């Protein structure tokens, strides 16, 4: 095996990225360093009230704790699978809080933090991974579409939806609608993603591609997905591409807000590459020790999105120990409630698999449904006697 097949250590990746930056490469957007120091940027900034600054911290912590409970519930046999977002909280909370109520989200399957920030009931993520249902919700009311398991399929749905927003004349002004689609670095290799960029571009759809580049598509590193990183590839599709520190909640907020405003004003689509890291394996079924080492994890632990933000809040005296303790208590309460609700989810009925396939059930399917119900009933009778 040649060394070219192994992922490069992340530190080297980051360094070589800067070294290889061309003269016209957009500057990496970072408003808060890993050490918790504020930086300025010529194009992006945030202005929050103290309360709003604290609110972002609360979102980050609660997101992390709810996600950790997902992993715990899987380990205890209560979920079939859990795809952890650990390490990606800032990318999700920053972008999620930048959305306006009228905006629509197309998630992949790891967007628990965005769902939380939308103020939605997150139980659907857990019923999906428990196998109780397939993740259905009232997506029209929520303006948050269903989780999508197939990589990049949702990018085309988002492009079509955004075309519809434009057809409706719902772009323009502060109350215009924008659409955001979440995907990963792996998705950028899929045909659908590239088609979605084409479509969004030629139809000038009000769409933001939010790529959480968490460095891995299961075991495959960025070096197996692209030679040119996504934020630079955007230009080839006629879209602005932005490269942001995805572990910086403030920068993630700033670039997303700008991209959404651009879309809602009718100025067209853009792409954000949020540079972040998946601290956990791909899912609870994955073994990441086979393809990455502890040194790489240490490198990213030092860039932790919550630690740096807390350091900055403390330095600016925006929050004190009592506040942090209160957030921890609130998160613990949310986790307790979630845990109980997951355990209490009722098992589905055998008829559930039949009833939603068609608007009107065709006669042959009605017969199969009756057969399945009768067979289940005969088994239940047998077990009772």
């Amino acid at each position, binding site marked *: 095996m040649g060394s070219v097949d192994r992922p490069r250590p992340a530190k080297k990746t980051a360094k070589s990225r800067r070294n290889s930056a061309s003269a016209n490469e957009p500057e990496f957007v970072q408003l808060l360093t890993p050490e918790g120091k504020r930086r300025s940027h010529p194009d992006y900034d945030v202005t929050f009230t103290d309360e709003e600054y604290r609110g972002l911290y609360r979102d980050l912590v609660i997101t992390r704790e709810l996600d950790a409970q997902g992993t715990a519930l899987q380990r205890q046999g209560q979920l079939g699978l859990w795809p952890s977002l650990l390490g990606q909280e800032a990318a999700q909370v920053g972008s999620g809080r930048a959305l306006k109520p009228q905006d629509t989200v197309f998630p992949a399957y790891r967007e628990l933090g965005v769902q939380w920030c939308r103020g939605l009931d997150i139980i659907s993520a857990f019923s999906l991974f428990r196998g109780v*249902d397939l993740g*259905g919700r009232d997506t*029209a009311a929520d303006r948050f579409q*269903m989780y999508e398991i197939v990589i990049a399929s949702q990018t085309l749905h*988002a492009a079509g939806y955004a075309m519809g*927003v434009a057809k409706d004349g719902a772009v323009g002004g502060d109350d215009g609608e924008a659409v955001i689609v979440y995907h990963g670095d792996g998705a950028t290799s899929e045909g659908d993603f590239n088609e979605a960029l084409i479509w969004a571009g030629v139809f000038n759809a009000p769409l933001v591609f939010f790529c959480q580049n968490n460095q891995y598509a299961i075991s495959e590193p960025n070096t197996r997905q692209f030679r040119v990183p996504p934020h630079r590839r955007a230009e080839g599709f006629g879209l602005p591409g932005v490269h942001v520190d995805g572990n910086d909640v403030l920068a993630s907020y700033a670039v997303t807000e700008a991209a959404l405003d651009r879309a809602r004003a009718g100025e067209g689509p853009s792409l954000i590459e949020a540079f972040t890291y998946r601290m956990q394996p791909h899912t609870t079924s994955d073994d990441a020790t086979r393809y990455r080492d502890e040194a790489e994890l240490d490198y990213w632990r030092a860039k932790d999105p919550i630690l740096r933000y807390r350091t900055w809040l403390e330095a600016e005296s925006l929050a004190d120990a009592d506040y942090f303790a209160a957030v921890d208590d609130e998160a613990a309460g949310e986790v307790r409630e979630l845990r109980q609700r997951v355990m209490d989810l009722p098992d589905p009925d055998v008829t559930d698999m039949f009833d939603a396939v068609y608007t009107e059930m065709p006669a042959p399917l009605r017969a199969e449904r009756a057969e399945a119900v009768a067979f289940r009933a005969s088994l239940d009778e047998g077990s009772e006697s």
Partner: protein
Amino acid sequence: MATMTMVKALNAGLRRILEEDDKALIMGEDVGRLGGVFRVTDALQKDFGAERVVDTPLAESGIIGTAIGLALRGYRPICEIQFDGFVYPAFDQLVSQLAKIPNRSGGRVRLPVVVRIPYGGGIGAIEHHSESPEAYFAHTAGLKVVTCADPNDAYWMIRQAAASDDPVIFFEPKRRYHAKAEVDTTGAPLGLHDARVARTGSAATLIAYGPTVDVALNAASAAAEEGVELEVVDLRSLSPIDWEPLEASLRKTGRAIVVHEAPGTLGMGSEIAARLSERCFYSLEAPVLRVTGYDVPYPASRLEDDYLPNLDRVLDAVDRSLEY
């Protein structure tokens, strides 16, 4: 009543759809300025505008994927896949998304999307332009699959498909595009998923759909000259299948032959033969036979007359059935 080709009938049906529903859209490659490579959408963009009759990039997955997004937004897209053999790039969006999203949502989301696909051979075309991929889609729960055999059905079935809140794959037999027949625009003859007895007879039942209905009717005419009265059932809906008329016909004749262009193995004929054997076992005088394309890739066009079910192959199968 007006006499017109299937192309004109489809065009007239699509025009009515666009007139009646502001949310209806037509989208596909070359459907706008050009009017489609078969001119099925001729003049529709001129009359309804480029926002409603949308010329798309050359990307089939993109056509279906964005149609799903438009449907999520409340639109009712009618997509054109230019030729049967070009539908495969859209397979994931059709099978994993269009078919499954309504069920995934627990019925809260409906996707009223129609996918028109010109299909079948017999036009002397190059590779990928003569295929019959209907079984892939009939095998996929969540999709409805229909096909028209004459202009009247073309006119009504496309309108019924557009009115459906479930996704419909709409196969158009391209070698029948230019055959003329009467279209009665005053009322729909049947429901979208009804089978139709196209000719009554008592000796055996020919079960056909799309391009082979004409083949079956011609075979029945030829057999009648020899005193053998064949019944012809036009399936019309491939998913769901309207079993009642098939079973009734088989109980009457005792013999059935399924005729389609697609390869025989695991084709529509396989399901029909299996199901009729289960349901009508004691009425059968002979096994259900199939006259189909062979289990090979669609051949070079100078061989397609050997590949396609034709009058002689159908009559040969009728003889074999009658000899049991």
